[in-house]
Structure formats: C-alpha cells, structure tokens
C-alpha cells in the first residue's frame, strides 16, 4: 500500500486540510471497527507510540496507539494553525509538521513566492523530507491552497516547485481554490495569474474549485433541508457539508464549503485506500486524463450532493447520480462541461455499484457528451467497494474539458484590467527577485493555455476522418 502526504498552505489550504483530516478520521473510524492500524489507515496516518520519545512507529496490524497525519502545514500567519492546535484535531499534528510566521503575505504573490519562498526554503524542504521519510512507498503529494491571496498562491506554488525538485518521481496533485469574480482581495487576479503559470508548469494535475460554486451548492443544500419540496427530505447530517459526527463541534462560516472540498479529496483517494473490483490508483489519474502535459486541469463534480433521506437507493436513482455528475449545478467550478468538449473523463464510484451499472450509464450518457475526435471513448472508471459515511454510494467525476477556458479567459480579463493601469504593481516590484517580466510571462503562459483549449474546441462538431493507416505490402 502506498502513502500520500497532504501539504496545506495558507489560510484556505489549512482550513480545508483541517476538514479533510476530521472527515478522514471519521471515515476510517466507520470502516475500521477493531481499532487495528490497517493499510487503509496507513495511507494518510502514521501510528506512533507516544510513550517512546521521538515517536516509535508501530507497524500495520498493530493496535492503534496514536494517529499522526501525514501532513505539512504552512502558513505565514498564526491564526488558523493556532486554532487547529487548540482544537480537537491538535493530537493529529505535532510541532515538527508546522511552519508559521507572524506577519502574513499581505495578499501579495511576490511576498509569498519570493520573500518567504527563499527565507523558508530550507525549513520547508526539511519538513517535506521528514514527512516523506515516514512513508515506505510515497506515491503522491496533495497540495491544497487558494489562488487569490498571498501565502496560498505565492508560497503554495513555491512549495510545488520544491516538491518537483526534491521528489521528481512523486505525483503532485494540486487542489486550487479559485477566487470569485467579486473577490474582496483586489490583487487576486494578479496572484491567480502568477500562480497559474507555476501550476501549468509544475503540477501533474490541478483540480480547480471555485468559491462561488461552493457557495451555491451550500445554499442549495441548506435551502432544501429547510423545507424545499415535500418528499425530498434531506438528511440533516448529510456528510457532504456537515462535519457532525466528526471531532469538531460548532461550525464556522466556511466549514460547509470546505467540507465539500475535503470530500472531494477523500473520494479521489478512496480507491487507493480501500478494496474494489476495479482499482484506480492515484498515478492512473494523470496517465488517463492528461493527454498533453500542460492541459492537466480537471473539472471535479461530486454526487450525490443533495442527499435524500433513505439509503436504499433504487436503480433509477443510481442512474440519476450519473446524470447529475454532468449537470451544471454539481460542478465544483462554475463551468458547463456538457456544452464544451471533453478530452477525457474519469468516473470514480464508491459503494455498492457493479460494472454493469457503470456500463449502462456510460452508454446512456455518451451520446449527449461531446468528446474530442481521437478520444471518443475517453472514459476511465474505478469501482471502490467502501462507500462514504452515511451514503450507500457516491460518484466523483473528473473531466478534462475545454469549459475551463471561460474561467481562464475571465481571469485573464480581470488581470488585464488591473495591469493596463499598472494598478498595485509597485507593491509587487518592491519585492526582491520580482520583475515586471514575471507578469508578462505569466499572462503569456495563460494565453497560450487558452489558445490550446481554443484549438481543441475548434475541432468540436466537425467530422474528423480516421487517420490514414499504415499500409502493408502484400
């Protein structure tokens, strides 16, 4: 069994990470009733004997002594990390996994990337190495950060670069929270575009989620659980947004949104942790979904989001789950994949679902979904037999789809609006190592990415003939 390390950077990254660890513990507690440290647990947690100084590690098969998260927490403020350390999850981390400063990055990518990036380089690498040393087969780093601020976007992408330098063979999957158009951080377009260049160049996969989509989903769930249509009673403790049953007590404003992202991460890794009749390992994600190295942005959608009360879901409702995964209001980013072009799509199913259910639904949905001509059958599937807590089954779809183009175009426009007036530019150019060329390179990188999507989009709907085959002399 392989292990993964979560690297959470900045306020947003740490808040999501915190929800993730809470839910991961709950999920394993639900599956693992005997209190034995099993392989599934080992993928995200170490089992240490705290009586021995320096934490003597206990192997798989022994009793659970003391679980420690395989995580590195980085923030340039103390607030969020301190809160975690005073909260119920404090036991899961120890001080060697944390790195904080006091002054923050002031919503400035350059401060995070350049200033803190060079000041803390050694310490970060050291902590990453420590986390890696605790794994006997490290497969994947999951980086969680936001794009809008300074620390998450600036230092986060610096950490990504360090990961590539130090661990070139370990897969890097990044979950990036994109700011809404009405973001309160004025410099967020700068930060996002500067960060995008790093993501495009150094990540294996990026899973973008958007604040606004998360808000919409949360509101809809709350609305439906507060009445809504009769008959469609939503479980109060729907695992998607509620942390109830986990360690944390009262909920904070962003908790519901962060829970959704944490669930996304849980589902991506489920097949690597638990058994199933069709395993989908983490390194298969990039292999199947990334046809060209730079186009590695994957649109996530999660179903069921709006859980209905009864658990024994009949087949029609199971089919509904598959349909929902392609509908606009189940995407975790504001985009409409159904009306754009699919390059590839993965369906990661959990729970009591058979291969025939999968096949039936793919056949049913295929005609309505446009796929690129050379990948008409671009489906990758995984079946994991352990469902999420409180559900009988669930589906995570990851789509490599040109619908992201509109998100990127919008971002690029907001960037240009500021950049044309050179607004706030001096804050960035003050920073050591930051030059104006960084801006132009970043925006060029984004434009060329948009262009690549454009080229593919242009082939949509056209009848493409089969490539002329090699002929054999007879």
């Amino acid at each position: 069994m392989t292990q993964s390390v979560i690297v959470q950077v900045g306020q947003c990254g740490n808040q999501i990470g915190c929800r993730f660890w809470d839910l991961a513990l709950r999920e394993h507690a639900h599956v693992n009733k005997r209190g034995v440290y099993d392989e599934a647990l080992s993928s995200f947690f170490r089992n240490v004997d705290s009586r021995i100084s320096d934490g003597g590690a206990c192997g798989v098969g022994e009793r659970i002594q003391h679980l420690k998260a395989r995580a590195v927490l980085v923030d340039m403020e103390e607030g969020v990390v301190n809160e975690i350390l005073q909260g119920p999850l404090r036991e899961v981390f120890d001080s060697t996994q944390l790195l904080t400063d006091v002054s923050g990055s002031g919503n400035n990518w350059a401060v995070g990337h350049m200033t803190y990036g060079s000041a803390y380089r050694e310490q970060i690498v050291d902590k990453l190495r420590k986390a890696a040393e605790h794994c006997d087969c490290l497969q994947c780093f999951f980086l969680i950060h936001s794009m809008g601020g300074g620390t998450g976007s600036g230092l986060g992408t610096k950490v990504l670069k360090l990961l590539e330098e130090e661990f070139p063979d370990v897969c890097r999957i990044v979950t990036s929270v994109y700011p809404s158009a009405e973001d309160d951080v004025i410099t967020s377009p700068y930060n996002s575009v500067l960060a995008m260049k790093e993501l495009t160049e150094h990540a294996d996969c990026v899973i973008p989620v958007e604040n606004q989509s998360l808000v919409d989903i949360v509101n809809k769930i709350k609305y439906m659980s507060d009445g809504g249509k009769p008959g469609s009673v939503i479980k109060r403790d729907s695992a998607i947004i509620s942390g109830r049953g986990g360690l944390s007590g009262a909920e904070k404003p962003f908790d519901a949104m962060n829970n959704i992202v944490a669930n996304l991460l849980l589902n991506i890794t489920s097949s690597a942790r638990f058994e199933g009749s069709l395993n989908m390992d983490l390194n298969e994600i990039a292999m199947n979904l990334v046809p060209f190295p730079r186009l590695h942005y994957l649109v996530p959608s999660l179903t069921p989001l709006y859980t209905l009360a009864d658990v024994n879901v009949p087949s029609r409702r199971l089919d509904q789950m598959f349909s929902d995964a392609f509908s606009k209001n189940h995407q975790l980013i504001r985009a409409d994949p159904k009306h754009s072009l699919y390059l590839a799509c993965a369906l990661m199913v959990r729970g009591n679902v058979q291969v025939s259910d999968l096949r039936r639904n793919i056949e049913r949905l295929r005609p309505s979904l446009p796929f690129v001509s050379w990948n008409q059958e671009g489906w990758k599937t995984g079946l994991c037999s352990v469902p999420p807590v409180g559900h009988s089954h669930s589906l995570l779809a990851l789509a490599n789809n040109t619908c992201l183009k509109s998100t990127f175009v919008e971002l690029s426009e907001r960037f240009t609006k500021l950049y044309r007036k050179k607004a706030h530019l001096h804050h960035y150019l003050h920073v050591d190592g930051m030059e104006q060329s960084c801006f132009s390179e970043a925006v060029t990188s984004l434009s060329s990415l948009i262009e690549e999507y454009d080229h593919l989009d242009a082939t949509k709907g056209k009848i493409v003939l089969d490539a002329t085959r090699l002929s054999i002399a007879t």
Partner: protein
Amino acid sequence: MSVVTLQLGQCGNQVGQELYDVICSDAQDAQRRTTHTTVSCERFFHQNKHGDLVARAVLIDMEPKVIKQSMKKAADSGRWRYGDDSHFSQKQGSGNNWANGFCVHGPRHIEVVEELVRREVERCDRLAGFMTMMSVAGGTGSGVGTYVTQSLRDAYSKSFILNHLTWPYGTGEVIVQNYNSVLTLAHLYQLSDAILVHENDTVHRICSQLLNIKHISFSDVNRVIAHQLGSVLQPALTADSHGVYSRNPLGELVSSLACHPEYKLLSVCTIPQMPSSSIAYSTFSWPGLLKHLRQMLISNSKMEDGIDWQMRPPSASERTRSLTGASFNTSLANLLILRGKDVYSAEAGGFEDPALYTSWLSPETAFTRWNSPVPFNKYEKSATLVSNSQALLKPLDNMVRKAWNMFASRAYIHQYIRFGISEEDFLDSFTSVEQVISSYTQLCN
C-alpha cells in the same frame, strides 16, 4: 504433464483464481473417473506436505491488494490454495502505463520473478509449458506481462508459451487501453506460441443474455472466462492418444491451431452456457449442439443467442470480404473439444467442410477434435471450439484504428516517452500489428 501459470496484474490474478477454482471443483466432481481427476490435478496442482492441492501458479502484481484477495478466496474455498510464497507484489501499481511496466517494473523485478518461476518449474515432474494470464489494457498485466514473457522465452526456449489475454471493454476501462494493447500484441507476437483472447464485451453479453445476470460484476465475467478456459484445458483424449489422456495440453493445442507464425490469435466459444438453475431442466443432443456451434463459428457470433442463420460458406467464386459488413468467418484451423455423455457418437463432419478453411490448408490438417466422456462443470454435454480464424479481426482492427487516431494527434505520448518508449517504438508496434491484420484479412483469398 504440468502447466505453470503466471497471473499478472489485477485482471490476470482475478481470472486465474476463478480458473483454478473451476478446474478444481470440476476435477473433484468427476471423482468417479479417477484417471481424469489425477491427470487434471497433476496438470494444475501439486500437493504440499499436508496433502492440500496447491496451484502451480506464480502471482505477480505491482500492488498487493488483488493478490491478497485472490489468495484468500482460494484458501477459503477449502479445496485448493496458492503456494505461500509463490507470489510477488510491490506497493505501487504501473498506473495504466505499458512503458512503466515494460521498461521500469519488468526489468527491476525480473530476477525475483524468474526465481519464483524456476521453483514452480522444479516442482513439476514434466513441464508442458507456461500459460500467462493478463489483460492488455492496464500497465502491469500488459507491460510487466510482456517483459516476463520475453524472459520466459529466453530461459525456456523449448517450452510452449500460451498467452491468455483479456481484451478490455470498448469503452470505459482505461483511456490509453488501445495504446497498451497495440504495444502488448506487437511484442507478444514475436514471443508467444499462441495467444488466446477473451473480449470483455463478448463475455459481458454472455453474462447478461445467456446467464441472465442482472447486476454483472467482474467476478461474473471472470467466471465465464474461467469456464471456457477450463473446458479447453481439462484433460481430453486426442485422436492419437490411444485412450490415454493427452499429456501435453499446451503442445497439442499449439500444434493443432498455430501452424503458421503469422497466425497466432485464438478465440474460444462454448456451448451450452446457461444459468445453473436451468441446467437440470434442459436436455442436449450432440447434433443440436454441434449445429449451433458450427453456425456460431461461420457467422462469428460468440453466443448461441442471435446467430445469423443465413450465413453460408461462400462458393469458390465469391471469396471476398469486407471488414465492416457481416461476412463469412474463414478459419485457418479449428479445435473442437467435446465433453460428456455419448461423446463418441457425436458427428462433427460439419467442421471438416473445406469451404470453412483457407485454400492452402486441407481440412484434415486444419481440423482437430478432442473428446472426453467426463462431463465438464455440471453440463451433461458440452462443446468448445478454439478457433484460429478471422473472428478477432474486427475488434483488433477497431483497437488499432482508435490507437492510430490518438497517435496522429500525439495525445498521451509524453507519458510513454517519460519511461523510455519513443515514437519510433510506437510506429514499429503499429507496423507489426497492421501486418497481423493484413495476414488475417488475406485468409479468405
């Protein structure tokens, strides 16, 4: 003689486990026929010091979960088990990448695997050969499987090697499956004595239409494959075996079916297949079974449901063929295996019609028949046909077409280059598989 199997990757390890299970339960069911049981057990199992039957298998995967599951299932059956130390697994899979399996994992672990195989071979009094079981879609089965086959070929140059391949569903398993399949087939064609193929799509249809399974799982699919394989590999009497169960199943199979190095692709169909609850209420007659089976062969349907009864062997003047239209399935060679009651009364003349075969081989050479009076797997009478024919031409052509379209836009190539497979390697593989397609297309001329 004994057969050593190598189970590779998730698919290989799951199908292999089902195969041993079918063989074991069939052999023990047939206890009244002691020689049959003895021969079957010697062929596939050895006995450990506690008297347990232990499969002559080496289990290989790059991740531990599936092997663990298969070994547990075997042990739970109470009838047979896998050897305690005849398996090899790593922690991290090949990630659906043939190049990762073939260029990285294969070379890295070949010594350990060779040692496991050697130990298994030394347990055999007489070695008939090897059967490797794998899928062509993923990375471990296809990539490591190809590498291991290559090393078997080097180390046991005189032994027979039969590759059993599971071809993926047309859609929805692995996106790069067509690349992986082309690379695997191109390489195996140089190494293997014969390649026996099961297509998931076909087997899935058998599960739903013949066996009436509502929610088809992979283990249902694998059980059908195991049933068909078992009916080929269980002991049977050949024409010149003089009442003694054939001693080298792989050798006899290869020599009767793979008579030309350009033609190595074998497909299987079996009749009857039905839900076990219906067997007791059904009667079978040899003429009926064989009439169906013959029509399944010439119209190329792998199921007795929906056979095209209009299909007739073409007269000498109309021997042409298109890839797309429904057309007559020309054979190079066929092997008919009959098991059950009154097997010697069965009349198989329909399979000796020269119109079924290519013009350059006489039907006497092209057709072989094996018999066994012992019924197989609860069917009172059953017939299996292993065919070296154009049956796989269409799925193979589809596979290459899709891979070639993808290659034309160079999609996913960077993932292979990373592990040392270049564009030229791809082109070489495409060329060899196109050669195979061309040869099979010529078969009807």
